[in-house]
């Protein structure tokens, strides 16, 4: 009986396991009789190939959990790739950009100080109610920091203006600090407009999608040119580390995806913030009435989505050695698809990061298997469509995620005003 419970909790993975089995059984073999699909190289290829969609999908999961949508992830990813390319190559730098970057770096540092505190306090406090400020990541910018930061920025700008030369090229660490901060700010802007303007997320993020694409093209300069990260530049050597295998074991972009999924999954599963997210998706008004700062949670969720999309942009440059304004075309749709395949409901309130990981892997494995068989690419599209529908059909009958989701069925439906009473599904098999 217990075995069955365990199995039913992992029902979500059956589609993935089946797909994997198909891959193994029907894999073509190399001339020496090796199973190509199962080869370590092939499986790590898949993990790297899904890393960009994966990161976007992790952020998208929470957005969809609060019954929102974020169409801007593709454009934000592309914009991030362009900025990354610029920072690495100094291609197309204007004096204004030269001065903006150190300022941005400071802001980035402050934001990440806040972000770290947000994650740690939330994880440390767990399910207990937390003070309102712990659900706000842009917090450090709101207090004593502001004069301090402004002073520092002014000093740096003055120094730069005096020296009026371009700073040294950015390294990976600096880029990973500045670019995600930029994405975080743009994502937060999405959230603020949605919350303060009381607009549909669809409209706001659509506007951001269009605008960010334009900004990316303007930033990249004429003809929305590709910004190659030149071979031989220091940046490329650094960045090769970002696309290579870590200690020969796992592809770094894939690790970024997995790490983001684990951190975000833990936030959703074990913290008050996570419970608020599910509560908002379940019944926003009730959640608001029970004293949760709904608006701040929402802004945080959109900010995270923007940040993860930007990290995807950095990884795009690492993998493809170029920043490109139209790199993210269609990414938002792929991310939403992966989330929905993973069993998260577009209505909000039901779903999990674990499901999203499964959805993303199904996506990647499917492409990989079809390509290994060298099936006509047009037929591949038909098959993908077919399999996506069937997979979701399977999952609609299965409402248990892993990282704590709940269904509004049976005894869970204690329709109280404070939906804090609703517990995430207690499946002990998590993580």
């Amino acid at each position: 009986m217990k075995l069955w419970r365990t199995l039913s909790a992992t029902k979500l993975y059956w589609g993935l396991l089946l797909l994997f089995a198909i891959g193994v059984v029907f894999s073509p073999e190399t001339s020496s009789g090796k199973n190509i699909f199962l080869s370590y190289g092939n499986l790590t290829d898949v993990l790297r190939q899904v890393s960009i969609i994966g990161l976007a999908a992790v952020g998208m999961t929470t957005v969809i959990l609060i019954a929102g949508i974020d169409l801007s992830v593709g454009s934000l990813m592309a914009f991030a790739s362009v900025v990354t390319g610029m920072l690495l190559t100094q291609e197309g730098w204007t004096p204004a950009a030269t001065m903006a970057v150190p300022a941005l770096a400071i802001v980035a540092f402050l934001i990440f100080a806040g972000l770290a505190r947000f994650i740690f306090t939330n994880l440390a406090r767990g399910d207990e109610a937390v003070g309102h400020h712990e659900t706000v990541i842009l917090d450090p910018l709101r207090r004593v920091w502001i004069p301090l930061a402004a002073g520092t920025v002014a000093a740096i700008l003055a120094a730069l203006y005096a020296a009026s030369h371009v700073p040294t090229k950015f390294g990976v660490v600096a880029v990973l600090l500045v670019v995600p901060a930029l994405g975080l700010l743009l994502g937060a802007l999405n959230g603020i407009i949605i919350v303060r303007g009381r607009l549909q997320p669809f409209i706001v993020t659509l506007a951001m999608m269009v605008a960010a694409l334009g900004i990316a093209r303007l930033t990249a300069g004429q003809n929305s040119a590709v910004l190659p990260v030149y071979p031989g530049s220091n940046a490329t050597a650094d960045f090769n580390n970002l696309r290579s295998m870590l200690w020969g074991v796992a592809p770094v972009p894939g690790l970024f995806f997995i790490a983001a999924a684990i951190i975000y999954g833990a936030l959703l599963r074990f913290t008050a913030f996570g419970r608020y997210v599910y509560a908002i998706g379940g019944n926003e008004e009730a959640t608001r009435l029970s004293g949760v700062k709904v608006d701040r949670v929402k802004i945080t969720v959109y900010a995270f989505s923007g940040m993860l999309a930007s990290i995807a942009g950095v990884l795009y440059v690492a993998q493809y050695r170029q920043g490109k304004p139209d790199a993210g075309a269609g990414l938002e749709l792929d991310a939403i698809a992966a989330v929905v395949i993973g069993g998260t409901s577009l209505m909000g309130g039901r779903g999990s990061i674990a499901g999203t990981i499964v959805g993303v892997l199904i996506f990647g494995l499917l492409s990989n298997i079809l390509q290994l068989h060298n099936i006509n690419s047009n037929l591949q599209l038909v098959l993908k469509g077919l399999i996506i529908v069937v997979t979701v059909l399977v999952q609609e009958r299965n409402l248990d995620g892993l990282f704590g989701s709940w269904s509004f069925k049976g005894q869970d439906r204690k329709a109280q005003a404070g939906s804090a009473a609703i517990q995430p599904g207690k499946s002990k098999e998590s993580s």
Partner: protein
Amino acid sequence: MKRRDFVRLSVLAAGAPLTIYLPLGVSPARAEAKWKIGFSQVTTIEPWRVQFNKDIEAEAKKHPEVELIITDGEDKTEKQVADVENLIRQEINALLISPKESAGLTGVVEQAIDAKIPVIVLDRNVETDRYAQFIGGDNVVIGRAAGEHAVKLLGGPGAAKGKLVEIWGGLGTQASHDRHDGFHEFTDKEAGIENLLDQQSADWKQAAAYDIMATALRNHEKIDLVYGHNDPMAYGAYLAAKDVGREKEMMFLGVDALPNEGVTWVHNGELTATFLYPTPGAEGLRQAIKLLNGEKIEKKIVLPTMTVTKENADQIMKENGLL
């Protein structure tokens, strides 16, 4: 009950791909194939790319010892990179690639070379010189051929006279600049040739070229020759002239010479001539086989162009099964 439903659906999910796999055969390695050659194509939407694939497939039929695997990058860098990674895992003997971008595909090309797979780059280069060979057309050469032909049509070197409309593909694309520069090497020498337009671009599209030409027809009472940087634009200009009944008083030159586009229009008498922008497909495969058989191949091959006029259009169409 629910469990059973679930299992049933899972089987369906698993069965769907299988039912389509099985008739296709589960691609057992062809025993007679001595070489496995992969070809990574950018997209199969554009007519020129379709012809490119046709050419390489036709060539592959002549070599029973070769198994050719063609992938389609769906016009996305990430898809094309994944395709090449996939081909590397399949342990192909040689890789042909027509990159979407130079920078974006360089990394994976190097990965193939590191895996001891020789790479032949087609049409657009990558940012490394470790490849075995590069094959491509030369747009300047094509522009020169068109310019020489235009001068001949307008009265020959030294005596050419006429008013010229040139429709650009794109002011930011190298191909367009090359086709312009080569053309003007010949026409600019002629005092009698007058250029009517200043860098008008139709973005390679027929409809936009129609609009540019319609305006030109209103502004100029006499136009002798139209040069479009590709065939659809030349054809769009022809249609604009035809719609005001003036197509007979001028000549139209295009570039690309795809059998089902430019060559057909020349055959119909709509375009005066078109100039072949050859696809490197067939040559690429031949060179790859040479390389695999241990012969030395050159680092770079520039494919020649060909002038297509009424005289040879029929034959080209016959060769491609269009007549």
